[in-house]
């Protein structure tokens, strides 16, 4: 299964705002994407609560997985999103 390991780039971790941006992008994906951290169970990347429950900080490694048409492209774009500092373009 196509997989990407990404280090969370947002300064304040994968919390409210960065998590929301990521979840909204994952929800638009035509294939099912999961995210997990460490040995924990993979959870749906489009579930805000599941992503928040990961408690991922800046520097935490997370693993994205997806299967199906275009999975690689989707994982690439989601991985890029996660590695960016989504707090940087803040109001």
């Amino acid at each position, binding site marked *: 299964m196509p997989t990407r390991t990404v280090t969370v780039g947002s300064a*304040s971790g994968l919390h*409210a*705002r960065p998590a929301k*941006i990521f979840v909204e992008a994952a929800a638009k994906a035509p294939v099912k994407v999961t995210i997990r951290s460490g040995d924990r169970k993979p959870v749906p990347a489009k579930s*805000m*609560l599941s992503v928040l*429950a990961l408690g991922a900080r800046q520097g935490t490694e997370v693993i994205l997985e997806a299967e199906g048409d275009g999975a690689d492209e989707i994982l690439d774009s989601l991985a890029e999103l996660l590695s960016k500092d989504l707090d940087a373009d*803040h109001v």
Partner: protein
Amino acid sequence: MSEQLLDPRAIRLTEKADDRDDAIRRCGQALVDIGAAEPGYITTMLAREQSISTYVGEQVAIPHGTLAGKDLVKRDALAVLRFPEGVDWDGEPVTVCVAIAARGDGHVELLAALAEVLLDEDQARELREATEPETVIRLLGSIQEETKQ
């Protein structure tokens, strides 16, 4: 974080709000009332909400300030406001707001712990239907435990 993270005075279970912004102002005021934030923090909460919704699911929103608002936080605290009649949150019905004031990045754990509670359907329902502050403290008390270090 201190044991004062969830001050009983900031648990308000019979609130009414005209709209989303009114609900956020009430949440912010609760944080100001218990001495956790300066009044200016409320403005940053409204700005945050305009930037991106803090709705997380299960009829729960987690209003909080922007990064710029951190300087207006006097101590880490939560406020839990319940709106029995519901509030239209950009098309999503919201019954409970868990407002957050946090100085550092301790709220990553805090949000994770809250999310764990909400992922449990029974606990999420209990929170939505809570009429006693004790219920809220029992449900969210674990958050304080987990973030105490």
